[in-house]
């Protein structure tokens, strides 16, 4: 087990370095010049000397490898530079919005898990009945509908017509319900489908028949014996979904006017705010790598067969 974990850890670190190199190279290949963007956005005539001053100040005149090494060195100590547009430390900007992303991600995951797993189990137990078909249809709908459409529809119904929930903002748990539901809907759909097929497969196994033959109550058979085993592939899916949520969902964040890592990322791309973009990509990649590491390890813990593969 330990050997397995160490192997995974090493892989994670290598991936992380690769990401920083790629993110850095990608930025410099894009069209547009960050200094000119900064000057132009102020709608003022600016002289060439001022532009040069700014370039110097942000180290944009150094050769690329030097810029990269400086970046990695500083990042290791927690200094992700300062935003070109706002002058604020990038690490602070990310730290400010990260809790909101965490909130949204975990809320969405809880909703997705509850809805998805119960729907999947229900469908499996009622295989080939109307309940099964209905739940397949619902999960297909959940996976197919675009989230911006669902979001606007939800706002229309729950904020304007019914007035139950607020449309935008982050200050309070009521503000979390709609965005988390919309974000979780697609994940719920795919979790439901996977749970259903996994359950069906497991329920046909001999050990389930044995459990029944032992006289156990049906509920115990389904939950303790069947479901636990059926959930093994679902754990991987949940892990991937969590990683995706933590990487930030720009659409949900924009529509519901929430701060978050995804919105920070998109804004920095559109404004060519180098330091913010680099810092955010690094944090998102690190999160993803960590989540996948945890998923891999828990997968191995849940299913001993994997450890020795």
């Amino acid at each position, binding site marked *: 087990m330990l050997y397995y974990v160490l192997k995974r850890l090493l892989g994670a670190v290598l991936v992380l370095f690769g990401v920083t190199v790629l993110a850095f190279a990608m930025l410099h290949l894009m069209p547009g010049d960050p200094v000119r963007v900064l000057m132009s956005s102020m709608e*003022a005539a600016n002289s060439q000397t001022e532009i040069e001053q700014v370039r110097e100040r942000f180290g944009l005149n150094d050769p690329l490898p030097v810029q990269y090494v400086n970046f990695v060195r500083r990042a290791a100590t927690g200094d992700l530079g300062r935003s070109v547009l706002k002058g604020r430390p990038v690490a602070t900007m990310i730290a400010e919005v990260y809790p909101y992303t965490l909130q949204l991600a975990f809320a969405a995951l809880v909703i997705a898990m509850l809805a998805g797993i119960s729907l999947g189990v229900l469908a499996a*137990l009622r295989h080939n009945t109307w309940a099964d078909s209905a739940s397949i249809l619902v999960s297909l709908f959940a996976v197919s509908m675009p989230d911006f459409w669902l979001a606007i529809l939800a706002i229309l119904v729950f904020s304007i017509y019914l007035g139950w929930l607020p449309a*935008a903002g982050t200050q309070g748990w009521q503000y979390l319900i709609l965005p988390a539901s919309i974000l979780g809907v697609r994940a719920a759909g795919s979790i439901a489908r996977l749970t259903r097929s996994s359950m069906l497969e497991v329920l046909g196994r001999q050990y389930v028949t044995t459990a029944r033959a032992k006289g156990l109550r049906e509920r115990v058979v389904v939950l303790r014996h069947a479901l636990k085993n059926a959930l093994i592939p679902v754990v991987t899916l949940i892990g991937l979904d969590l990683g995706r949520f933590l990487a930030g969902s720009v659409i949900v964040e924009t529509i519901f006017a929430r701060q978050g890592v995804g919105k920070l990322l998109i804004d920095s791309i559109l404004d060519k705010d180098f330091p913010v973009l680099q810092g955010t990509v690094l944090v998102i990649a690190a999160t993803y790598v960590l989540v996948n590491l945890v998923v891999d390890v828990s997968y191995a813990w849940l299913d001993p067969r994997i450890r020795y593969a």
Partner: protein
Amino acid sequence: MKAGLWRWEGPAWRRAGAAAGVSATGRSWRRLGPLVAALALLVACAPAAPPKDEPAAGAPSPAGDAQAGGTLTLAFPSPDAGDVRSLDPQVDGATYANTITPALYDSLIIQDPRDSSLQPGLAERWEASPDGKEYTFYLRHNVKFHDGTPLTAAAVKYTFDRSVDPKYRPQNSYPATLMVAYDHTDVLDDYTARVVLKEPQANFLPSAIARSYLGIVSPTAAERLGVPAFGEHPVGSGPYRFVEWVHGDHITVERNPDYAWSPPIFDRQGPPLVDRIVFRFIPEPSTRLAALESGEVNAIEGVPEADEARLASDSRFEVLKFRKNGTTGRIDLNNAVFPTSERAVRIAINQAIDKDAVNRNVYYGVHVPTRSILEEKMWAFNPDALLPAYDPAAAKRTLDEAGWRPGPDGIREKDGQRLELFGFAWYDIRPAEVVQAQLQAVGIKLNVEKMSRAAGLDRVNGMDWHLYFHQPWGWTNEDPHILYTNFHSSNVPPLADSNRDKVNIPELDKLLEQGYQTLDPAKRKDLYFRAQEIVAREAVAVPLISMYRDVAVRKGVHGIKADIRGTYRYLHDVWIEPSAR
């Protein structure tokens, strides 16, 4: 099998056997299951009847009955940078910062939006020297900053010095540009400050001193916090005090009970009536609208054109229409590259474009189509300096006379060159699409491309384009000196970036330079009138739309006023009826 929730019907092979015994009807009912479920979902999706308008809550109070209390919640679209950048006036905040800073800080002078005249602010009166290089301001007594320290001439000197201080670049680039003629300030006594300029600047008072960028800051607080922390914890002398700023979500300010005066252009003399103002950022237009309609906010900026008519006719809301000032929304033409370097081509482009159609199709007829380069609100607006009107037949004649004959595919040609142009937009591609069809009709081929903001701003500085669709509302400004910024040859890239049309007309340059230095308002007006005539005659660009910058409020929210530029708001006079709180 036991019945109940956990019942499981057994593996498929066993159920198939059992099913063999079921009647044909039963089997077909099972197949109908998914179909029924689908139909049920479709029915559920049918839109519910929209909510009826609530009846007006009693008779509205007469406007004179201003009442204290309540909170104004004003939702902004986020500017591109995603948030107000800073609440430090000498640091370049994004657009909406300039609605928030006048609530927190006072300026020495304020410009009356009704007639462009200069009115007392923190300066009760002022004198200009005959050569225009010295301005002496006599300040109000007994004004205190929010931190209790007194506002004296020393604070004025501190504020003006830091606006040009190179140590705060690039954040203070824009205020520094406004103060380009500033040399230094002499503190004559506690309440008298003399500002000395390097050279005379005709629009120094309206375009520098009266701007919110030169709002007076508390030197004690600014020194203690430094840049950029002071921008996060602003301390001014204005009618509202800072409470908190949750980045990307909202900024809260509360009424300043020690505010004992107000510039004379406002009704309210003394502290404001509302208790608090919450500025929220909601980038998505439909969400912003939903927040207004559900009552979460009681005022919004950035009213989507598609919904304006509906909101205006809804008795629960009111749309405040504010016209902006500066230059009109226009299509920039590259005057330095063929074929848009040809005057005939530029005139023909103006004649081919139906501005009214653009207004109707893209903006739901909300704004005003225009043929002028300057907005009508500008005090030096020349109503006779109009660019060519929509007349496709005239456009064809103009091109014919210039030697552009229709080629085999209808696109005009001259000396083997096709009249094929490249246009791009980063903000909104829709006007470009409408214009594309209109130009096609007279034989001009326009290829359009939408690109990101950064790529767009970069492209326009080069030569590789003919038409540029900038932000559709044009430039905002209070003074005709904006013509210099837009059309003087010293501002053509790469020297600077504001003369995107790359206009280079020596006669025009001279007029604009004189306008900058002539102190007599009547003479200035004449100079700018002639400048506008040249711009119109040479058809350097295509004026398109004069935009309203509207605010939609819940009925019962009173007193939101626009500044001289039309885009920022003065909140000194706001009061809210109890029914709208």
